[in-house]
């Protein structure tokens, strides 16, 4: 997407969507959910595209971020905005525990990090004195009312998640355009060749894992306050990794806008169209759509739409 379109796109996102759809709380809730998926897809793609690591374990960061924020606000009385940030910090700490998996590559990394995600789900279930166990945490405080705007409502929450996603996309773009971004891109196919030039590839990969975890944790925390309730099977559900992966691949995970576009298209299509066609098993159509995308445009929807144009800067 060209830089010139950004102001118009931001205006449409911040003003157009609430003006046109703000009265329809069902559609707004779907858009909120799509942005949650999009934000996780963006964080996942940052690790996949820049870090060169395919993760099946991002549900751990969603869950840990959600639980940390929910417990600190509901039980310790911290304000919700602080809880959101600390949710991100909690996910970073979870990622620190996972750092040894950086010694692995490819499918071994993907499976090892999936195992970690399961361990965190088991911890949340068994550590009943802190997490409430399988019964979960109820009474998670909603997003606050600030200057008369109820950020706990569907439209208010939309502004919050949209801002979070925009800030994360900006951070992603900055990292990608930096010298670190160059080295990270180069590392995928030639890690030894980058190391002999002085690149500490392990440190860079770790930084990407931690940054991706922070982003995912903040979004997990947002979701906990948005929903108002957490239990382990929901907080650490596999859908927190499968849907973002589908969205990122569908949209084009090697671009910054692709995962967001993919999430909006995939989630809204699924909920508004496929679900009405087949109420049970509608995800099958998503699967077929993803296969078709991989066959006809392996680089995803965004590159398909912008084919023939100059690629995104910083992607």
């Amino acid at each position: 997407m060209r830089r010139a379109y950004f102001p118009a796109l931001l205006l449409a996102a911040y003003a157009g969507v609430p003006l046109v759809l703000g009265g329809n709380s069902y559609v707004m809730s779907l858009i909120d959910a799509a942005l949650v998926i999009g934000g996780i897809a963006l964080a996942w793609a940052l690790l996949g595209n820049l870090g060169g690591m395919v993760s099946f374990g991002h549900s751990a960061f969603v869950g840990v971020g959600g639980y940390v924020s929910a417990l600190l606000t509901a039980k310790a009385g911290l304000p919700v905005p602080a809880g959101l940030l600390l949710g991100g910090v909690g996910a970073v700490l979870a990622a620190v525990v996972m750092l040894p998996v950086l010694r692995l590559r490819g499918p071994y990394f993907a499976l090892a990090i999936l195992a970690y995600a399961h361990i965190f789900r088991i911890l949340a279930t068994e550590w009943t004195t802190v997490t409430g166990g399988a019964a979960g945490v109820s009474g998670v405080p909603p997003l606050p009312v600030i200057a008369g705007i109820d950020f706990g409502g569907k439209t208010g929450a939309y502004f919050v998640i949209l801002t979070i996603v925009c800030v994360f996309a900006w951070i992603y773009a900055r990292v990608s355009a930096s010298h670190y971004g160059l080295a990270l891109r180069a590392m995928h196919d030639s890690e030894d060749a980058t190391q002999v030039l002085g690149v500490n590839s392990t440190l860079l990969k770790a930084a990407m894992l931690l940054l991706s975890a922070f982003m995912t944790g903040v979004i997990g925390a947002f979701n906990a306050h948005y929903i108002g309730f957490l239990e382990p099977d929901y907080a650490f559900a596999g859908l927190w990794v499968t849907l973002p992966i589908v969205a990122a691949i569908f949209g084009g995970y090697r671009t910054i806008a692709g995962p967001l576009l993919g999430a909006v298209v995939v989630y809204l299509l699924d909920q508004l169209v496929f679900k009405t066609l087949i109420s049970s098993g509608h995800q099958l159509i998503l699967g077929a759509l993803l296969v078709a995308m991989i066959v006809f445009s392996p680089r995803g929807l965004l590159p398909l739409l912008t084919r023939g144009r100059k690629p995104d800067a910083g992607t």
Partner: protein
Amino acid sequence: MLELDNVTVRFGGLTAVDNVTLRAGSGDVLGLVGANGAGKTTLFNAISGLVRPTAGSIRFGGTSVVRAPMFRRARLGIGRTFQIPQPLHGLTVRENLVVAQRFGTGKVDERRIAEVLEFTGLADKTGRDAATGLALTELKALEVAKALATDPQLLLLDEVLAGLETTAKRRFMGMLQDLHARFGVGIVIIEHDIETIATLCRRVAVLNFGRLIADGTPDAVFRDPEVMRSYVGNGVGGGHG
């Protein structure tokens, strides 16, 4: 500057480098020769950190680097090229050098990058995709350029002339002859062709089945009967490829 003492590298039951003791200084242009499988590239890998020696010590500038990771050795001043060129995928020629400068030296000096590009003949290729847009000679030049961009004190060149046709080889030889004087860098070069080694190097070390069997001036080394038996007698000058 580089001090190898009793360096041994074993892969299971195979001893690829056997108790090698060798010195290379900043004023050296040292040729490392030997038949295929003699352990030359493995020795480069041990020096640059790609493999860890089974035994022995490696010191660079007075500091032990035997346990240092590759990136730290590069920052200390050990630059290297690979026998099969390894351009940084997805980046342009210039970006390859920017990564080398930024991470090898901690800063990006545009004048230095321009100087290296001009020296290696890549000044008009800066925007090309490094992995897909270059011919073999240019890929080899990029290997040298990346290593030079890290501001090395010692440059390990692994068969940079291999596979080049005669004209390109002659041009490349000219570049290598200027390299030491222009950048003040010590050079260790692996090369099979004796004429090339005799032209470029003031000193030659010979490996045979991982053991260092000779170390001296080209004239003296290539008159050594053991060298002749192990290396020249095996068909040097093309036979070793």
